[in-house]
């Protein structure tokens, strides 16, 4: 293993361990995420009944809701404020004295914190599977490509979060940025309601943004709402966003680091 990869792994592991230090974090993650999932299930069952809504029947909606739960657990359970706080309280000074690329190190830490949501996601999915018996993937290949979509969520979530925490260099506050990002993500990912329920123009707005890949892309692939070629197209778009946001993050940091002002010691 090259030296850089050893450092990445060390950062992933230490960040994971930090989250391990707070077991209550898992419990609350499961309670909040699982609770939201249960409410969504009850609501969709009531709304859809034995009919269909924009192409979703109760069977597919159960799978959709579970996929939404996994995406939400991964992205909302990660340690975004740790990154923001270090910029705001000046600890970034310490990070900048380390012989590692700043963005890459933060990515490794962030991915470590995303991985720490794994037990929550697994417990939630197992429980939901037992309770609701959702349908399996449209095909084995669809199942596999769904996993690829989840894997791409790691760099994508990092890209979005990193960019939004870099905004703290200018705003000196994080709360509002976090709310904005989470609201946009909840709405345009299809986490709150499937994008298919929205008017055409709003769907077009959503698909011009990176957010649909947090629920709509994996669920469309899983349920076979797109064919293999369509699935590959969605995954290519998801990957392109991850790469694009990484590049944008790199550019923004280059400007931001010139603005670093760490006062008082």
């Amino acid at each position: 293993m090259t030296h850089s990869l050893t450092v990445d792994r060390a950062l992933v592991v230490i960040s994971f361990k930090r989250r391990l230090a707070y077991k209550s974090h898992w419990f609350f993650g499961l309670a909040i995420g699982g609770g939201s999932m249960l409410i969504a299930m009850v609501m969709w069952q009531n709304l859809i009944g034995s009919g269909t809504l924009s192409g979703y029947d109760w069977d597919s909606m159960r799978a959709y809701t579970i996929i939404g739960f996994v995406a939400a657990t991964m992205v909302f359970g990660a340690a975004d404020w740790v990154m923001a706080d270090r910029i705001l309280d000046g600890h970034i000074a310490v990070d900048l004295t380390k012989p590692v690329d700043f963005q890459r190190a933060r990515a490794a830490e962030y991915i470590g914190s995303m991985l720490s949501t794994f037990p929550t996601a697994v417990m939630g999915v197992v429980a939901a599977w037992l309770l609701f018996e959702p349908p399996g993937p449209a095909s084995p290949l669809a199942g596999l490509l769904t996993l690829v979509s989840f894997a791409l969520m790691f760099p994508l979530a990092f890209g979005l979060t990193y960019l939004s925490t870099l905004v703290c260099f200018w705003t000196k506050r994080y709360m509002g940025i976090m709310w904005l990002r989470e609201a946009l993500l909840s709405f345009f990912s299809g986490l709150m309601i499937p994008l298919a329920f929205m008017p055409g123009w709003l769907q077009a707005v959503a698909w011009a943004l990176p957010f649909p890949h947090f629920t709509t892309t994996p669920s469309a692939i899983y349920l076979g709402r797109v064919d293999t070629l369509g699935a590959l197209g969605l995954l290519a778009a998801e990957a392109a966003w991850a790469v694009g946001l990484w590049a944008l993050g790199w550019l923004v940091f280059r400007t931001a680091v010139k603005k670093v002002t760490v006062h008082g010691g």
Partner: protein
Amino acid sequence: MPILEARALTKTFRRPDKASGFKGAVKHLMQRKYKNYTAVDGIDLSIEPGESVAYVGPNGAGKSTTVKLLTGILRPSEGTVRVMGRDPHTERIANAHDIGVLFGQRTQLWWDLPVEESLKLLKHMYGVSDADYKARIEKFDELLDLGEFMPALARTLSLGQRMRADLACALIHDPKMVYLDEPTIGLDISVKDRLRAFLRELVNDGTTLLLTSHDLADIEEVCERIVVIDKGAIAYDGSIERLKAHYITTKAVNLYLEGAANVPELAEKFPDYEWTAGEAPSEVTVTYESSRFTTAEVLGSLTAQLAPRDLSLSEPSIEDVIRRLYAGELTK
């Protein structure tokens, strides 16, 4: 060739110019006004390998800002820095390999994890070999008693333990150039003594050290050279010995007389010395110019004529000199 060289180093910050109160806040929202202030103003500094330099100044003088410029955290507004031939800001990662930094007021430990985890992470970051890591940890344990809190969570450490752990973090890769920004802040005397002994050892081993502190004992015990900065500019740069020789031109004797001291009368009797009343009525301090009189002469004449109950010599203190430097009484 110097290990560190700064030329005309300047850092200007932009600060919002806001009137106080609600009206001021609204006005600032409508019409943003900023004021520039210069934290570091054209500093020239050159440090040779193996030197131990104290960087001293009152609060807000620009000490920490200078350290952040020298370590590559901040980008200079003007001027240049070269550390081992590199620009520490644009070649940040390469520079970071060769330097060690401690910010007394900010920990680099992972707060929720055992101290050992932070050190192991740094081992990976700096690519320290297993053998070197083990040897250094053993040495730190010997000198700083690191072992007793290696398994403890960083957030449960006392301030003294935290500082010792942070020092180990700053030095785990055996850096050539070390910057310590207030390493003894908030520590008790015994921990300070240990830290100073450790730093002396570090300097003896040939590490180049730049240390900022408000504690003048840190400076006298660890460093040979002192740079005094005030209002962003260097007020003095030279050896501590020279500073003393140059600026400590007087010495003092405290006398404890049998009865109450009559200061005006004594001043008339010994016009060559300066007389000031002490804390108790029978105490009096005699100040004399060290270039004109030897201590033996002074003591001889005073004991012969006044027969004091007791006496003590006041050691010349660098603290007084620096206080006067800050106050602008002294010039280069």
